[in-house]
């Protein structure tokens, strides 16, 4: 996916004017936030599980090489193949190669964020194959030729009307000409079409929520069952997954699964939580003949080695997005790449370079709601500040901001000078603004006054000045009376 994060401000402004988007994002707020809170309330040991999950994942990250090698050995024992992809391009090359060797023409796909990182669909299409997204949200945005705007509800920005239009336009090729408006009917139409795609697919590609090192299995969590049909029907199954997704045992998976669905949608468990074991065994009624796992690095080892290691605990639940008021105002497309919201603002600069996404870590009030709801206890504000350090050190902030900060820092370390400078300014502003109590417009304050009045200073001078004067008066009075 092309990185457009440099246009964050412009894209955000456009998003803010979009009334349809505003309505759609309102659903996120009311749906996901309330439901998550209700689900968490029913789990009195929630904080305990969070602590366990954090510690478990930290242990894995400290021993990532060990667990990945153990996973590889187990998959190989099961008859599968593990491939190691250093970059997104490597991952695409490996996957296209497997598909080409199999003579694949149609590929079904379960939702995979790491696949979006690599623009896997683009690579498959360039190689002459048809790649069909089977998650309903991904299917919709594939028709619309758009990027996902939420990591678990990719088409959340689309209204029902827009979906009706898309289906009406694109389903004509299947001899379906009626414009459907009923929600269930829309889902059914998509289901009917996708059924055929599932059946005919030569290769099925999915992501994975967790890789189990002890058994070589992986866990696939969906609400639609599309992951299962994508995995089990074609002859060849490929899993594309980030290296940070490995965990030691099935027991560990059960710990993390207690957090995942509740944090994502407020469900206690998703509709389909499947444990996949690799190629079909002799006694299996179905399953692929060939099973491949493509482990992707794409800057994850850099994050592991640096200040951003804790971000690798993320299991892509989307809770941080749902609770972020900035995401809630501008939606996912403003962020310009695969990952939006708080986690997107940490991961995107790490993967595409901070110079290509310098605004993202700053587009945040550091209010901390994201860290509060993160099931994996990722200190998102702290990680965002780390990126801000980078933008400062590499002079990626606007000259105006840097200059203003410089002046402020200079004055802040010189209290006498500061008090002398501000005393006069505050007195003047206070005198001018006293009658009305605020300024509707003020030189240099355009960014504030475009939407707010600026309260004028209340005192006749600064606090420090008034306080000192009162102290002096008290001392004089005391001296008079002594």
């Amino acid at each position: 996916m092309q990185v457009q994060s440099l246009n964050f401000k412009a894209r955000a402004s456009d998003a803010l004017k979009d009334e349809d988007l505003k309505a759609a994002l309102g659903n996120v707020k009311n749906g996901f936030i309330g439901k998550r809170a209700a689900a968490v309330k029913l789990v009195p040991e929630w904080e305990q599980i969070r602590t366990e999950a954090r510690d478990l994942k930290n242990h894995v990250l400290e021993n990532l090489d060990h667990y990945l090698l153990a996973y590889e050995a187990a998959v190989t024992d099961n008859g599968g193949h593990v491939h190691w992809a250093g970059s997104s391009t490597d991952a695409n090359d490996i996957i296209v190669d497997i598909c080409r060797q199999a003579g694949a023409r149609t590929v079904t796909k379960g939702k995979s964020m790491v696949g979006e990182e690599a623009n896997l669909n683009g690579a498959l299409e360039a190689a002459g194959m048809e790649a069909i997204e089977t998650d309903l949200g991904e299917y919709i945005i594939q028709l619309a030729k758009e990027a996902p705007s939420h990591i678990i509800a990719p088409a959340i920005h689309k209204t029902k009307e827009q979906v009706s239009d898309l289906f009406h336009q694109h389903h004509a090729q299947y001899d379906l000409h009626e414009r459907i408006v009923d929600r269930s009917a829309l889902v059914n139409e998509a289901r009917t079409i996708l059924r055929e795609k599932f059946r005919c697919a030569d290769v099925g590609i999915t992501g994975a929520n967790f890789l189990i090192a002890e058994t070589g299995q992986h866990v696939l969590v969906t609400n639609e069952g599309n992951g299962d049909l994508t995995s089990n029907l074609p002859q060849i199954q490929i899993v594309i997954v980030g290296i940070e997704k490995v965990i030691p045992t099935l027991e560990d998976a059960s710990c993390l699964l207690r957090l995942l669905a509740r944090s994502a949608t407020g469900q206690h468990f998703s509709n389909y939580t499947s444990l996949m074991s690799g190629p079909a065994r002799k006694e299996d009624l179905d399953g692929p003949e060939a099973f491949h796992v493509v482990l992707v690095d794409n800057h994850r080892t850099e994050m592991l080695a640096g200040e951003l290691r804790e971000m690798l605990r993320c299991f892509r639940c989307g809770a941080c997005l749902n609770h972020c008021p900035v995401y809630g105002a501008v939606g996912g497309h403003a962020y310009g790449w695969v990952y939006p919201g708080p986690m997107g603002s940490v991961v995107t600069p790490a993967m595409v370079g901070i110079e290509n996404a310098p605004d993202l870590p700053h587009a945040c009030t550091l209010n901390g709601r994201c860290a509060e709801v993160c099931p994996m206890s990722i200190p998102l504000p702290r990680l965002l500040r780390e990126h801000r350090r980078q933008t400062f050190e590499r002079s990626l902030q606007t000259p105006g901001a840097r200059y203003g900060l410089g002046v402020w820092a200079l004055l802040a370390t010189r209290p006498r000078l500061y008090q002398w400078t501000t005393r006069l300014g505050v007195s003047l502003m206070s005198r001018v603004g006293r009658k009305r109590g605020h300024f509707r417009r003020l030189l240099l304050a355009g960014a504030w006054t475009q939407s707010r009045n600026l309260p004028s200073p209340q005192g006749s001078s600064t606090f420090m000045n008034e306080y000192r004067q009162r102290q002096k008066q008290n001392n004089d009075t005391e001296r008079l009376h002594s």
Partner: protein
Amino acid sequence: MISVGLFVTCLVDLHRPNVGFAAIALLEEAGCTVEVPDSQVCCGQPAYNSGDDGSTIKIAKQVITAFERFQYVVVPSGSCASMIVAHYPELFSDDAIWLKRAEDLAGRSHELFGFLVDIMKVDTFPAEHVGDVTYHDACSGLRDLGIKDQPRQLMSNVSGLSLVEMEDTDVCCGFGGTFCVKFPDISERMVSDKAALVKQSGARTLLGGDMGCLLNISGRLSRVDANVRVFHLAEVLAGMTDVPAIGEGAGTLTDPATKA
């Protein structure tokens, strides 16, 4: 007598000295002697949140030094208090001597309402405020310092005050320090959502504990003619609301009936 150094905060110093004097009055009422050391300007948060650790450290050292001699340091702002308490130690992770001094200061520093209720165990002041009031929970104080119940406990003992909670009290108002001027469009959406919730509560007065949030929200309320009066809770508790509300003109004729 408990010795307290007041860290005034730059926004109180520049915009609303009344809050500083109210804080002193409350602390003295609670049994403290209060001093305001001269060598203070800012907690360093603007620099810290902009990734400028160098400047932040310089500013922090000044604050640490100025407030070393007090038993407690009290701050009428959750965000500045959280800078000192939660973040100063982080700044000095590879400077053992300053780390100790920073941790020492962090251990003695408190946000105003947390200090009054949790440390001084004082939650009642002879204040009166007749009418419906709603309260905004500033993010840093809430999430870094756990300031949520204390202001409510204090308000419950103000005679005549009736608290009507608005929806989403704990959702960010869109100030975020430099955020509000770096991303004014997004800030506008966030503050207008907040202002709408304030209006929806039906309260005629908005209170809070952070000048940043209060300037932001009152600025928006005033722009949309919402007719809501905004004060810092300290001013109400100290009985010092006979000054214009935040953003309110001195020339405004306020009908006593609408003062609530």
